[in-house]
């Protein structure tokens, strides 16, 4: 399912099974200053199909940033991360692991799988909003990323 939240410029893929969380992220981004298109997939299988433009995602854009939850049904975030970073066409996409887990294992494992950063979701809404804005700001404004060869759909 592709859901274009807004038009123009930045494409963000959110991989999150919890609709509540997805909505909160969406709300936070909406309150942000950067114009973005947020796509949401609910598990790893959908996410990889999206990234590889398979099936219904044939026309999906290549995202500028992936927000990846770890614990999901079917295919979890670690597998998705591993496949993105193993794929030469996808590995340059910054992947931010955004999860409720504070487990040391998850943190270490994620970085071993070349996660670009690991962020624990705060319970407090204000803090969460602030963090999402920081992510947005850092990865989409501060950081210089390589130029795309192909245009987003």
């Amino acid at each position, binding site marked *: 399912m592709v859901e274009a939240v807004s038009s123009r410029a930045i494409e963000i893929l959110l991989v999150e099974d*919890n609709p*509540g*969380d997805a909505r*909160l992220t969406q*709300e936070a981004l909406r309150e942000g200053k950067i114009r973005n298109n947020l796509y949401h997939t609910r598990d790893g299988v959908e996410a990889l199909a999206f990234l590889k433009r398979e099936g219904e995602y044939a026309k999906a854009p290549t995202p500028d940033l992936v927000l990846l939850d770890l*614990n999901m049904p079917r295919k979890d975030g670690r597998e998705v991360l591993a496949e993105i970073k193993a794929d030469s066409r996808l590995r340059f996409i910054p992947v931010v692991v955004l*999860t*409720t*887990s*504070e*487990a*040391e294992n998850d943190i270490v494992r994620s970085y071993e799988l070349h996660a670009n950063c690991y962020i624990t*979701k705060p*319970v*407090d*809404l*204000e803090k*969460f909003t602030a963090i999402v804005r920081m992510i947005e700001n850092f990865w989409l404004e501060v950081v210089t990323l390589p130029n795309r060869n192909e245009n987003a759909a």
Partner: protein
Amino acid sequence: MPAMPIVQKHISPDADSAVATSDLAASLATAEARIASTEAKLVDAEEMLHDSLQSSLSWLWESDERLCFTRIVGSVEQLLGTRAEGLIGKPIEDFTRAPNDPQLQHHFATIKAHKPYRDVITSINTRKGVRWIKASGKPLFDVEGKFLGYRGIASDVTAQVESERRATEAHRRFMEAIEIVPASLMLFDRDDRIVFCNSATQRYFPTASHLLVPGTKYEELLRAHAASGYVDGIGDDLDGWIAERMKAHRAGNTNIVRKYKGGHWSHIIERRTFDGGLISVRTDITELKKREVELEALGETLRKNQEHLAQAQRTSGTGSVERNLQTGDVKWSEECSRMFDRDPTLPAPSRNEFLHLVHPEDRAIYEASMIASESGRDSDPFKFRVTHADGSIRWLHCETSLVKDAEGKPWKRIGTYRDITEEQKAADALKALADKLRRSQEYLSQGQRLARMGSDFRDLRSDVAEWSDTCYEIFGVDKATFVPTTENFLKLVHPDDHATIARTRGEIAAGKNPEPFEYRIIRPDGGVRYIHREVAVEFDAKGKPLYMIGTIRDVTQRHAMDEEIRRKSREIEERNQELQRSNAELEQFAYVASHDLQEPLRMVASYCQLLQRRYNDKLDKDAGEFIGFAVEGANRMQRLINDLLSYSRVGRKGGDPVTFEFADAVATALANLKGTITDSNATINVGPLPRVVGVRMQLTQLMQNLIGNAIKFHREGVTPVIAVSATIEGPMCHIVVEDNGIGIEPQYLERVFLIFQRLHERNKYPGTGIGLAIAKKVIEFHSGRIWIESTPGQGSRFHFTLPADIQNGATNG
């Protein structure tokens, strides 16, 4: 050898008889001329002649011109056993036993030439045996010179000849004897020339033997002898030496001993002979001298031995006392004075004085011995003590002997004393040692019994073994009936363990000492026992086993205990696994708590907040308040979950223990608490702190919790003052965090360390009540102890201990 006869063969002529004969003839002629006047005298003379012939050994004879006897006057018959008439008319020549004797032939020639002869000796056979006759004859001529016959005299000289023959034989025997003796015999004449020397003499003059001939002067012989260097001790002055020697020689009183080259010795004796000559006798005394030297050496040895003996007696401290029982006189040796510690210049002690020298407790036995001697009985050797002036007590051994006089009365008592103090000491020590040994053996036996251990010895060649009593007890066999042969022993061994025994026996046979091993036995009563066996085998030079010494220990109990330990270990292992499982579950729980519990919580909290933010103006006051409670509850829940997670992570987080300055942990904690400290205006005094061994992150958190707590629970209106100090106590350091806060009621002192225990309402002192629980867990993880002293309203002291860095020396001040 030139043996010189000392007696010349010589027969002295019967001069008187010959003269008598011629005188008779002359007087006959005178008588013829004066017949008448002297007829009487003639008859008288004839009678006298007859008588004298009868009493002499001679007779007169006459022959005719044919040399046949015509007349014989004298006692022929008595002398020769032949009648004179029987000889008349017989030729003179027949009157001999050895007609062919050349000397006699010459005589016969003289007779036939009608010449006079004197003293011709011949032997004849007579009825009285062989007789020796000496005859003289004078031819008679008439005036015209015509031979008329012989007239002569003959004598029986048998006795003379016999004695002469005996003298000659004696001389020869004497000469032979002289030749046999090993001594040198020399005879010198009055001119000091050699007359004779026996052949042994050559040995005494080996360098001058060529001079040992008759006629050599002694001085010539001596010079050659001495100059040859054969004689020892001459020195440079040869002439002087010879002069000295000649002086003694001439004096004829030589009696000297001389040494010669080659170790020969001679004894020289010289004496004058009756005729002014000299006899010189030399005897070889070399052997004698050797014996003398040997004897000398022997004597020296004997002297030394005697000295040693005397010395030995002195050093062995043997003294003797001789008491004359009849007179009471006492003689005692100086050694005795020393033994009895009595002034040696004092006279020997009397009987009673003597008794007083003896230790009072030993006087009775001493006196009994004296009385025995006095009454003529022997007394046994005994020991007694004497006390010396310096207070030391010496033990003496006394042995007595009793001498009786001719009448059998006791005469002398001789006591021999020996200082046996050291022997006595040694004997006492030995006795003590023996007692100790006996006790040790008893202890050993008892100990073996208690330790359920036996010892044994086995001669591997004869298979004869000795078992200690405990061995029999362990094997459950009767010592009286069980013979511990290998065969009998094997019957007791558990069938499954025969292989073990066979293996060790094989090792021993191969010359190896087996390692300790264990086997089971089945006792006659059916009980199975475990035996721990240790042996030491003695081998001969070829590695053949000789005998074996070993111990057996009943380790059945230990085996039971081992079994118990194994069972317990298994239990522990199981529990450990359980614990690991539960730990894993706890981690799983922590994970669940961190993710799955927080996820819905976040939803609740976030959406409540979102509602508040977006719809605050559209809701009424109650709705806003309710939402506020929901958010607050969710937040608190979130903190509890986080604290619980922290608590569960203690011991699993922060890495391995390291050595570090505890002050660094305190500094980090203070830095983390900077805001709180500034806000509360607290004063923190940190004393000297040691190096500790621990997990730095955890200890930092500990100090953060304790100092944070101390600030949090300050008294209202009182500025917090907190002191951190430390002391070293053995391997640990003891750290105190003291505050001037509100303090804790005594009944709560233990509760404060329990998780989520709060003593105060949340509004006043916020927090979940996890801080001290975590502190306690951290300290326990470091094998330390934590406790509190507190006075409510004045302050608290938190104490805890940690391993100090003792290796590098903890710094404490």
